[in-house]
């Protein structure tokens, strides 16, 4: 029987750094590290030299100077005497607003189109194909600029709403004004509201939240959890007795009544836009830039989401549906219990990466003058202060934070629904 012996101890030779695979990886890494560090060092030293020559060392003090520009579409109070930091904060909120609105509408349109593309009706499927191809193959910036042009050139001026023989009229039961200066929609008002709460004192990140809104959201959450409890109770009864108690009227009542009561107590009513002087007053004013950006981003991203939804549904093999049917499940239960849980596992990761794309594409707001963080921090603040390096670093940091948070959520979700394999 052969005995194993240790291989001869080799002495280390310099050439082994090149030829021996055990040491070669080390050599490659060291070379790469030296190269990388020297390039970075070179760039930084160049930057320092150049900035010194220009006489503007890297500092962020400019953020606390007065911004002296206005932002017309904003969620929180702001005026031109506020600091650049405050302006950037308003910009970040505006980015999040348009991203949030866009994600919701893009999902709704995308799911609808994706399902319709799979329709057995030939015409419907073809129309949806045309929509998807048209939007996917044309740059989103073109859609944004076109939407803006249509809104500005195509819609009537506020003065067209005036007088006896007005050429334009309000839409949707006289409540929505579509003008070339923006869209006016009714605003929710509370005649005996309970006021606002201001957060973060006097800092640049201060904002106030309406207590009415908090109350309504809290009541809604409570109602939904009670409704969920009723559903779980019905499931329990069904599991033990085989009969499912009728629950829909209970759940509907629990969901609607408390909210209706709270709204009535707060004195909820709508404030309608009215034509006063040269412009509309009252209601919520959505600028054309916001509408154009929102519309174009939603329609563009929806085309991609439609393809994802279609792919996800097609990825579930027919056998799954047929097996479920042979178990005696009804079509809608097949959809809810068998097809959707599996399709969602395919759909959600690319869906979230499309949300991410939409958020990043919202930076194109600068082309239509919507003041998102690119327009404030990377636009006017940069041009006014001449602090390119600092502004762009901060701008990238903002977007990186948003992107990395969204991808963290995505990774967490992926891990929680991952199929456990061997």
């Amino acid at each position, binding site marked *: 029987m052969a005995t194993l012996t240790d291989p001869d101890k080799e002495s280390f030779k310099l050439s082994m750094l*090149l*030829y021996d695979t055990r040491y*070669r*990886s080390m*050599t*490659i*890494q060291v*070379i*790469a*590290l030296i190269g*990388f560090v020297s390039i970075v060092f070179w*760039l930084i030293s*160049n*930057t320092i*030299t*150049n*900035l010194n*020559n220009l006489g503007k060392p890297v500092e962020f003090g400019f953020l606390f100077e007065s911004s002296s520009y206005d932002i017309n579409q904003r969620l929180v109070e702001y005026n031109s005497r506020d600091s650049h930091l405050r302006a950037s904060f308003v910009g970040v909120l505006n980015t999040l607003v348009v991203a949030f609105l866009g994600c919701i509408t893009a999902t709704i349109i995308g799911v609808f189109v994706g399902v319709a593309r799979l*329709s*057995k*009706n*030939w*015409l*419907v499927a073809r*129309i949806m194909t045309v929509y998807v*191809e*048209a939007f*996917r*193959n*044309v*740059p*989103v*910036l*073109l859609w944004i*600029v*076109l939407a803006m*042009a*249509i809104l500005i*050139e195509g819609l009537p001026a506020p003065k067209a709403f005036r007088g006896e023989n007005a050429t334009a009229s309000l839409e949707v039961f006289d409540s929505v004004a579509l003008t070339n200066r923006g869209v006016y929609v009714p605003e929710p008002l509370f005649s005996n509201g309970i006021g606002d709460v201001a957060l973060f004192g006097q800092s640049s990140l201060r904002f106030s939240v309406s207590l009415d809104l908090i109350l309504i959201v809290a009541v809604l959450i409570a109602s939904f959890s009670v409704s969920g409890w009723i559903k779980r109770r019905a499931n329990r009864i069904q599991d033990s007795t085989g009969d499912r108690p009728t629950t829909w009227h209970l759940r509907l009542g629990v969901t609607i009544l408390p909210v209706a009561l709270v709204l009535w107590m707060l004195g909820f009513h709508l404030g309608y836009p009215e034509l006063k002087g040269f412009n509309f007053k009252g209601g919520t004013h959505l600028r054309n830039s916001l509408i154009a950006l929102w519309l174009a981003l939603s329609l563009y991203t929806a085309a991609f989401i439609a393809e994802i939804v279609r792919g996800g549904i097609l990825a579930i093999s027919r056998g799954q549906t047929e097996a479920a049917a042979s178990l005696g499940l009804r079509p809608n239960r097949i959809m809810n219990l068998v097809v959707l849980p599996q399709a969602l596992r395919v759909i959600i990761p690319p869906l979230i990466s499309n949300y991410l794309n939409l958020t*990043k*594409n919202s*930076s*194109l707001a*600068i*082309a239509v003058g919507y003041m998102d963080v*690119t327009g404030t921090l*990377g636009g006017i603040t*940069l041009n006014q202060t001449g602090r*390119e*390096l600092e502004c*762009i670093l901060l*701008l*990238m940091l903002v*977007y*990186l934070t948003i*992107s*990395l948070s969204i991808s963290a959520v995505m990774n967490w979700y992926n891990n929680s629904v991952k199929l456990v394999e061997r």
Partner: protein
Amino acid sequence: MSDQAFVRREIIEEQTPPLTAFGLVGWLKSNLFSNWFNAILTFISLYFIWYVLSGVLPWIFLSVWNAGSLSECREIATATWGDSHGHACWAVIKDRWIQLLFGFYPSELYWRPILAFVLLLISLAPVLYTSVPKKIFYLTAVYPFILPWLMWGGSVWAYVSALLGFVLGYAIVRYTSEIVGQLGAVILSVIGAIVWWLYIGPLLLSQGVGAILPLALEPVISRDFGGFMLALLIGVVAIGCSLPIGIVLALGRQSDLLILKTISVWFIEFIRGVPLITLLFVASTLLNIFMPPGTNFDIILRVMIMVTLFASAYMAEVIRGGLAALPRGQFEGADSLGLNYWQSQRLIIMPQALKISIPGIVSTFIGVFKDTTLVSIIGLMDPLGLSQGIRANAEWNGIYWELFAFIAFLFFIVCFSMSRYSMYLERKLQTDHR
């Protein structure tokens, strides 16, 4: 059995299927009117199509082609059809289409971008289709040097020198790897090429041969570049460079070498986390600050660098997906054959990984090409940038549908044909039996 009244003794003749099951009627019944809900959908769709076409078709075809301004267009439309709304004013395209295609490129030099475009198609042909003669690959290899020479002009010798640097590097790898090993040969060739580009090449060719034989085209400055030509130029360069860089980054991210892996991951995640527009801001304002004092290199080149970096990060993720989809057995099989890392990548792994990731690669290409429109935000004159100028012009103030329709049409043709080609390629490379 005797109480049966009738037993068929012979097979009945074949009959034609009912009218509603085949031909046009059958198709209509199964695809459009299979039940009442589908029938309603069909009627709604028909109404929708009629509504859209009744507006769009007269707009496109009953249109004004000869006019000097938008108001003149409207007058002609009102005089001819009685209204000014539902009729396109293609006169703006007729007036400005050359500008939308070429920007402010000198008109007597249009042959250069056109020749570059034709050569691009020819040199792409052997890459795209296997039936094309292989000799054209030589053109493909030198095309990256012909393109900038044709577009920017100047002396040919700088580009020849750049090309010879690559040839030199390749030759060093080819002939010294026997002697100093592969890694040593790569290091030597990089050093050799850099020495050539910095010292020998300029001395020998630009000053030596260039002085004797000045082969030069009239130079064109970058400010004159514009239109769809600019979009194509940036798109082609970014697409062409991002694929190899993306492959390297993807391999770096998958590799066992910790430092390379960390650098690749950070680079990819950083680039993918920020919008392209911030990178373009870097190109327009910061890139000169990063370079040694006094450097002032071309804005289009700066934009190309940033767009390429952007595209490479996305490409790397697509290719990483392809690598991850390969079964482990492929990697282990390549190892057990005794192939080294690059051999196994080149012969076993990459062909399969790239094949799997074709749809992703092509959609990244399409995305990059569409994203070239963003350069209009930093002031380059791509079609969208030009359209703003045209709309601000007194004659065409207020026009938008016609302009944007034309630009969208240009982009649509290129992007749509790319996606169709990727479908064709997928079908051609499909090896599983379905």
